[in-house]
Each structure stands twice: as C-alpha cells, then as structure tokens.
C-alpha cells in the first residue's frame, strides 16, 4: 500500500473504530482486514513521518466526534475510535522520541486511594488518548504519594482524579495538599470527576475543574491548554 492510501486507510479504520484486524468495525463488515494496529506498523516500516500519522489520527477523531455530535454514533463508537487512536499512539510512542512531534500534554490519571471503581476513569483515559494527550493511567486505589511521584516522574501538566464513593472523594483533597507541599500545584492543572463530586466540591478542595463526564473533560482541557 502506498503512503497516501495507507493514511486514508488509517483514518477510515479509526472512524470505523477498528483496533486490529479481528474487529468487524462500525458497519460490521471489516473483520479480517488490517486494522489501525497493523496499518500503523506498516506505516512505520514505510518511514511515514510521525507527524503525518498523528495528524491523520487527529483528523479521523474529529470525524468521529462529528458523527457523535450528529447522533449517528453512540458512546461505544466514540470509545472504539478513541481506543484505536490510543493503540496507535502506544505503537508510535517509541518512534516519536527523536521526532519533533509533541503531544497535547501529559495527563496523569488515577482513581484515588480506597476506591477501586475505575470504569469512568478508564473511559476518560481512553478518550483523552484519542484526543492526543499522553495519558499515564496509574490505575485504581492509588495513594496521594504515588500520584505525586508520577507527576514528578512524567513531568505531567495535568492530573485527573476519580472517585465513586462519598467516603473516598475526600482523598482527592489529600492529593492536592501533597502537591502543594511538594511545590507542584502551580505547575499542574487538577481535574476531578466521579458520581459524588460536584463543581462546589472541586472549588472546596482547590481543584481547577470538575468534569461531569469524559466529554466535558476534553472541552475543559481544550480551554485551559495554552
């Protein structure tokens, strides 16, 4: 496949939400054909530039977003597109180190200590990856110390904290307090989310924003990203 065709195929497969060849895609007819993983690997072999690939992935995700906004796509379709882009980014990452391609920023995300609910956090992480952020997903039940350690290690610009329980949401405050005492708070934007949280709670604990859902998280990030 020549480069232009490969780029077109990658875009089509992101829109179809096909991580790999085993996926049948949005229209259910594509099983067995190369998916985003195979196509991106092929593109790397062909020395197609990282910038060109990332531009193609971003454009395809814009199309996915438009289809979602128009009602043609539902959330599973949106997540499928984002997961395809996330997988592509994982494959591309080692090849981008020496290139001039920059992500939209590094985002450390975790469900706070004492809380093992990670569905919402996983959805946010998937969509953020799809939107071009370098996402470091620490998992669920993560202590304030580990989160702050990761912020330092990855030089993160953003932190996302999630909690489902009223008993664990207060741990978000501990993370912010620790970031302040470590002198990191002014360099990092903190976004929180989860069923029991609210804009008032975000304000109370000193977070930068409360996100109702993954889509609002992306909108907020777009607004606060320089």
């Amino acid at each position, binding site marked *: 496949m020549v480069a232009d065709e490969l780029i077109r195929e990658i875009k089509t497969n992101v829109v179809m939400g096909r991580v790999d060849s085993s996926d*049948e895609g949005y229209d259910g007819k594509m099983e067995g054909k190369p998916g985003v993983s195979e196509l991106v690997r092929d593109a790397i072999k062909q020395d197609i530039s990282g910038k060109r690939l990332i531009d193609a992935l971003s454009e395809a995700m814009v199309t996915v977003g438009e289809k979602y906004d128009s009602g043609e796509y539902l959330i599973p379709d949106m997540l499928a597109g984002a997961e395809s882009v996330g997988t592509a980014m994982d494959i591309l990452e080692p090849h981008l180190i020496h290139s001039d391609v920059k992500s939209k920023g590094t985002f450390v995300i975790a469900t706070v200590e004492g809380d093992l609910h990670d569905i919402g956090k996983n959805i946010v992480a998937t969509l953020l990856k799809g939107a071009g952020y370098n996402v470091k997903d620490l998992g669920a039940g993560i202590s304030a110390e580990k989160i702050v350690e990761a912020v330092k290690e990855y030089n993160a610009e953003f932190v996302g904290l999630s909690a489902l329980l009223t008993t664990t949401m207060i741990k978000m405050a501990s993370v912010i307090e620790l970031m302040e005492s470590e002198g990191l708070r002014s360099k990092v934007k903190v976004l929180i989310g989860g069923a029991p949280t609210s804009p008032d709670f975000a304000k109370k604990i000193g977070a930068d924003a409360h996100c109702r859902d993954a889509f609002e998280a992306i909108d907020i990030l777009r607004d606060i990203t320089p």
Partner: protein
Amino acid sequence: MNDGTFRAGTLVAPTFRLSEEQIRILHDSSLRVLNDLGITCFNEEAVSLFEEAGCITAISDGENAWNIRIPEKVVMEAIESAPSRIVLGAPDWANRLILDSREARVYFGTGSETNIFLDTEIADFVCTTDSSITMRHPIYKEKRGTILRLCESARLCDSLPNVDFFIRNVNIQDEGISVSNKDINVFFASLLYTAKHVQAGLVDISSLDNVVRLGEIIAGGTASFQDNPLISFIACLIKSPLQMVEDTTQKVIEISRRGLPLVISSSPQGGSTAPIQEEGMVSLINAEILAGITLTQLVNPGTPALYGAVPVRARLDTLHDFYGAPEFIHYNIDCVEMARFYNIPCYSTAGVGDSKVPGIQATVEKLFSQLAVAQSGAQYIHYAFGLLDRTNIFCPVQAILDDAHISLVREILRPPIVNEEVTEASIVEIRKVTASSTRLFARHIRKQMRRGLVSQPYGLEGEGDRDEALENACAKLKEIQETAEKQLSDEVIDEIYKKIAGVLPKDNFEL
C-alpha cells in the same frame, strides 16, 4: 423462521402458572360441566347439530331454549379437528400473522368497541401562588365515536410498530349508520387506513357476504382471499354462565360454514357471572369456549377457530369489570395454558386500564398484564392498546404510550441465545478486553447491537428533568396524523364503491 411473509411477533419461552396435574383437573371439571350440566342454547340449528353429534338435548326455558349436554367424546373430537395453526392474512403480505399453538409467538393488537374517543392536549399552567412556577399538563376531551375517529385510530395503529393486528376499537355512531350498513362501514374504514389484519364482530349476519366481498376485492380475488384472509371475526358466542345466545350462535354457524377464521370468545365476570375463584372461573370459561369450538367443528370440520378468553373480575364496590386485578392476570394465564393443552391458538386479553386517563395508574394496570400474559405465551393478545376506563375509552395518546411499553415488554421477553458458538465468542471478547489497558467492553457492544440484542432507552423519554412522556406521545401522534396515508389505492376504492352496497359516501372517510 420468519421469511418476511408474516410479522415476527415476539417468540417467548413461556412460563407456566399451572402444573400438568392442575391442567388435567381443570380440563376434567370443564368436561363435567359440559356433560353433567350442559349449556343452554337458544338457536335451533345449533341444537340439531349437537344432537346429530350425539349430545343429549332437552327443551328448557319454556320452549325458547334447549339444554345440551355435550359428552367428552364430542368435545375431544372437535378439539382434534380444530386447526392448531391459523393464518390471519393482511393487505400487506408482510403483516400476516401465523398463530401456531405449538409455538409461543406473541402478537399484540387493539380491541373493544369504545363509545368514547379521548383527545389529549398539552397546556401550560402557572402556579397560583408563585407565577414564576409553570408546568405543562394534559387536558382531556371526551368525544363520541364516529367513522372518522375509527379511521384515525386505524391510521394510528397502522403506524405503531408494536400493533400487530387491528380490531375495530371505536364504535361508529354517525347519523347514516344503521344495523344493516354498520359492518361494511366498520371494515371499510379500518382497511382504508391500515394494511394490518382487521378483525371485528358482526352486528348483522346478513352483512357477512358483503364484508367477505370487500375482503376479496382488497385481497385481489376470491382465491387470493382464501390464501390471505385479511379479515376475521369475533363471536361473543357465550353469555355466561353457559348460554349460547340465538343471534351470535347463528353468526358462528354462518362464519364456520364459510371456513373463515373466527374467535370463539367468552367473557365471564368473576364474582357475578362466574365464580371469582380461579379454579371455578377457569372451569367455567373453558367449558364455554370448548362448547363454542365444538359447534364450529360440527358445522365445518377444520374451521379455524381461536380459543377466545376474556375472563375478567368484578369490582366489589360497583360490580364493574376490574382489569387491574391480579386475578384478571391469573385467569388469563390459565386460559392460555388450557388453549395450549388443546393445541388451539389463544386469543387472550391484556393491557386494559381501569383508570380513566393516561398516567401512573393506567401504566401500572396495563403493564403488569401485558408482561405477564405475554410471558405465558398467548399467541394473540387483544385490548393491548389505548383502552382506558375499562374498555369504554380509546385514547390515541395512550395507544402511543402502550406501544412504547410493549416495545419494552418484547425486549424483556426476548428468549436467551446461549449456545457453544456465541458463548465461545464471548470468552474471546472477555479475554481480549481483560488483556487491554482500558478493560472496557464498550467497543464490543456494537456487534451485539447489530445482532438486535441491545435494547433502546424508553421511547418517550424526555430530555430534561421533567417526565415528558405524555408530551412526547402527543408530539408523536401529531407527526403520525400529518404523515400517515390511506392504504387502499384509488382503483381499489372505486371498485369497492362499484361492487359493494352500503358504504357511505367517500367524504365520510376523509381525514
């Protein structure tokens, strides 16, 4: 398999209320009722038929009626001769219904013949103590049943995806309607606006051939009508307890003689015309329906007769019908099981509200019976759309609500698909997702959506915090009124006017 030439309905895995032993006990008790007590029959021709078959008859009621004692052998031979599979045709071939007693394929339709047509409007209200508080609330207007309202109802039901068949549900009371022309105008108004199966009772037996001719014209000829009987009849043969009235009995004889599909229906009221207790009610109604089915088979063996069960309970404060009663559901489920025992397709009853307006009471009363009776595997459930105030009101907006609710009932009753192949595919999916960083199954939902296995949210859900179901139902009704069309071509309509007497002028049917 549905090859596209009949409606899919909902194929359910039926649940059972009665044990095999209980069914046998009820069967035996009905046979005892028929053999020991017999039925009172006011139709002489029917008496002769029963007599010739070996029943014991005796004059009763001052020579106006006969007592007919029907032995088990006669009943069992009739059951054997009654078809276990009945095809109800439709103007649109894809709307045909296959009623097979051996499969629990459930169809829902309309029913009753209401005198009141309830219009709904949504109006804005302002709080009298705080004018900043406003709300939207329905206003209802009762209207008389007319031809146009029957046309409107047929057009609506043609558009509602969960209505599988149309039983005329509005009593036409126009000035030009008389006993002699009512039947033809009822069938014409219905078939003008729906391409689904149409069913009604006959007011006047002399209309029968006229109505059949109408069906033949729409079907495209006599032979086509035989292949595709797009109309059928309901005969409320029995006046409970245990009486066959003269005129309806004659209608049953004539319809059976022509081999047309018909429902043998009985509607005893537990607490007044039947025992209130389940076993007593079912012993009685089952005996009554079996007597009617026996008559159809004596007239013409092989007549496609449905086991028509409309058992209700009496309210104890008014002796009105009480459709929201749990006993109503018990009675109906039992009848479905008795019909299955006899291998005869069951015309059953569910979805009536005692409430006079749409709302929480109506929804609760309707949904319990719609779900429970359908779950028992009744092939043909009438009364399921738009009925309020027992069976006195048809409300189009309620029919739209019922359509949305029956859509959920169908989803709930969808049988499981568990086999080696799909289960293996699920294991592959689980393996794949648990190995991924997202650990989310969302992407794989799409495959199941394509298989038709992922249900949709409530069809009349609002966007805001308020319950907007009624408003959305009103909006949907308006949309249907603006877009739905007649189902008969001008050529067919002209042919009907040319060949059939008694149809009122065309402007009576123009919506």
